[in-house]
């Protein structure tokens, strides 16, 4: 019996080898590198040419902001306020280009939660100013720190710049208020350092070597984070919630991003959206050339609409472009748009909703991304 089994296995193996060999009279099997299905190549490109350089760019802006913030803390003058505000604006815009990397080190540090949960909690911030030992590492403190809290502190504590400067020059409370600004910028810098250090040391290797598609693999974590970012933080956070499209249809203009500064809310959205498009297409941060990416992977998988033959990556890019067109007609101040032109906001939300479906269903399905640990027999 054993002898038979051996024979059988031999036949199976021979058949297998023959089948592999028969592919070509001499032609070699395509390496995954050549045909775009090599996930290691994709992950390496995304890490080396997008994620790590984008964090480096952001660090420059954040360091600049911290420097200007320190100047303002040392000398709360009109000039220093203006300089701080402009550095804050630049850093906030640059942040939109890294917020989407919500996997690996960023997810571990939950950096997004500490950086950009809005609307800011005014009462929480005022309470923290009074209590310098308030815990800033718990979920309850998310809305009391990061860019939105700074937005309130440099744009929202009073109506005019003179009054804001006066707010910080007050002999009674000024020092405590400035100390809180310093605490917040220091905390942002240290969180970012942790994330960047991890990317520059061990995580890059982990990221590019876990090439599977199981739940703990890099691609799976990245895609899940990537999809969630669009759905929850671009679509819902920036449009769905303020426009009321997601709740009762009641508008909530005070829930727009950068509510106190107001006139940068559109540029933040557009930057986030462009960063998203570029990441999808694998556009390198420095050279702006496209490399191995989610797009090229989908193309290699030949993911397409079987009815029209159009590739899935084209369909996704077209939908992202359609959303961009709707963004372009908005005015810079989304607070005003919600109040006076909300239908345009809802229109953007509806376009984004279509993108969410493509990303969440068509893209993840085509890539065979796993979302749970449990057994399954393919439904």
């Amino acid at each position, binding site marked *: 019996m054993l002898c038979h089994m051996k024979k059988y296995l031999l036949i199976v193996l021979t058949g297998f080898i023959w089948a592999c060999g028969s592919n070509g009279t001499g032609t070699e099997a395509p390496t995954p590198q050549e045909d775009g299905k090599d996930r290691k190549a994709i992950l390496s490109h995304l890490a080396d040419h997008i994620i790590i350089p984008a964090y480096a760019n952001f660090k420059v802006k954040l360091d600049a902001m911290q420097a200007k913030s320190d100047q303002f803390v040392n000398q709360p003058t009109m000039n220093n306020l203006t300089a701080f505000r402009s550095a804050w604006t630049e850093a906030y815009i640059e942040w939109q280009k890294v917020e989407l990397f919500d996997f690996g080190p960023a997810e571990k540090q939950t950096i997004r939660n500490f950086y950009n949960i809005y609307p800011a909690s005014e009462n929480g911030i005022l309470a923290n100013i009074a209590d310098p030992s308030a815990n800033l590492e718990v979920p309850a403190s998310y809305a009391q720190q990061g860019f939105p809290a700074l937005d309130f502190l440099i744009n929202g504590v009073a109506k005019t710049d003179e009054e804001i400067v006066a707010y910080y020059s007050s002999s009674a409370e000024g020092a405590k208020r400035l100390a809180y600004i310093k605490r917040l910028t220091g905390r942002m810098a240290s969180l970012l350092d942790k994330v960047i250090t991890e990317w520059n040391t061990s995580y890059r290797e982990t990221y590019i070597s876990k090439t599977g598609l199981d739940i703990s693999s890099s691609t799976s974590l990245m895609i899940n984070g990537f999809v969630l970012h669009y759905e929850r933080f671009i679509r819902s956070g920036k449009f769905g919630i303020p426009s009321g499209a997601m709740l009762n249809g009641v508008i909530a203009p005070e829930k727009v991003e950068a509510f106190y500064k107001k006139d940068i809310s559109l540029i933040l959205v557009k930057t986030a959206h462009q960063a998203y498009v570029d990441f999808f297409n694998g556009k390198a941060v420095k050279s702006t050339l496209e490399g191995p990416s989610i797009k090229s992977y989908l193309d290699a998988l030949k993911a397409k609409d079987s009815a029209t033959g159009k590739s899935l990556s084209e369909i996704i890019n077209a939908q992202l472009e359609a959303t961009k067109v709707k963004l372009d007609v908005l005015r810079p101040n989304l607070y005003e748009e919600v109040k006076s032109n909300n239908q345009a906001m809802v229109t953007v939300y509806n376009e984004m909703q279509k993108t969410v479906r493509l990303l969440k269903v068509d893209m993840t*399905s085509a890539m065979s991304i796993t979302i749970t640990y449990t057994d399954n027999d393919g439904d």
Partner: protein
Amino acid sequence: MMGINQYLKKTTSVAPLAVFRICFGLMLLGSMIRFWSKGWIETLYIKPTYFFTFYGFEWVKPWGEYTYILFFICALSAFMVAIGLFYRIATISLFFSFSYIELIDKSTYLNHYYFISLLCLILVFLPAQVYFSVDTYRKKHIRAQFIPQWNIDAIKLMMAILYFYAGLAKVNSDWLWHAQPLSIWLPARNDMPIIGFLFNFTWIPYLFSWFGCLYDLSIPFLLWNKKTRVWAYAAVIVFHVLTALLFPIGMFPHIMMVAALIFFSAEFHQKIIDRLKAFLQLPKENQAIQSTYTSSPFLPWGFALFFGFQILFPFRYLAYPGELFWTEEGYRFSWRVMLMEKAGYAQFTVKGAPGQHAVVNNNLHLSTLQEKMMSTQPDMILQYAHYLAGFYAKQGFRSPQVYVDSYVALNGRLGKPLINPKTDLAQEHDSFSHKTWILPFNDTIKGF
């Protein structure tokens, strides 16, 4: 008629059944331990706040923290079946505890769990304890060396149905002409050592699809036939080892590899038992037992009824209009395994009195697995909609209406809405009749 009577009188050695009992019990015990150690009792049966019950089994509820006791009962029963202690009680308890667990939540439905439930039920009525069991040491008079041939054949037939129907379900245009869903699933494994590179070839999913289909359709016959049996079993090993390596299907491949041993001869199984006896240093029997076990004359009719049902039930989908893969009306309990890459998205809107309007965040109500399963299966969408109606009524919504914006992609097709977004699901009720609020698939998948 004479032929049937003669067949029913035919006897054979009990050894294959005894080996099957031991293996089956141990595999199930292993399954339970694996499930427990992975923390799945907690994540699947304790943590969720809502459970998708089966139609007609709404009374099945998890036991909260005591669900562990349920699993303990099941594991203990499996062990008792394996060693053949209080066999009848143990098989009954195994059948009920295992089936109860599987009935708690539809989102955990797997064909092989259904298969195990059915085997447990079959074992309740088979005399697998009359040989090489603790029971025979307790009560020597129950010992028997021979049992009716049909007892063994019943298990073989159950396995044959599983394989053959699984093969039949693969005879469809998606599987054979488009190699779907394997064309999606296999490239995902191209980083596997040694064979991974193969999955970059576009023809490999076709090879696997055709091989898989032919394997399922022919393997019961090849195993049954003495001449082809050894080769067939080698194919069983190759096939299931491959599926175990490639797909997250848990214990199924292992159970099938062990269960397929039932097709081997009595001498083969006797040898296993003799070796086991030697290994366990059990005392030798003083004299060979020669008695034959006789079962109730009504039992074969019960089995005939059971198998008649098994043969017809998977075809119930023919009673429904529309594409089976799309509507899933008649999809479960029909040995349709690994046939679909189906992903979906379902966003619910609940409306009450004017001004009462909410978009539901599914994460607040469902686990990841539940949401994934619900978003592609119409009956689960309906159940969830009813749950939401109840939930929002408690929140003060006046007679809540529930609408769903759904989007489902199937086997590489671009996604499209599955449910009519204008249907107030709170007004619809589940039944065995066709669900008219499922939107048409507008495509055809030819075949079974």
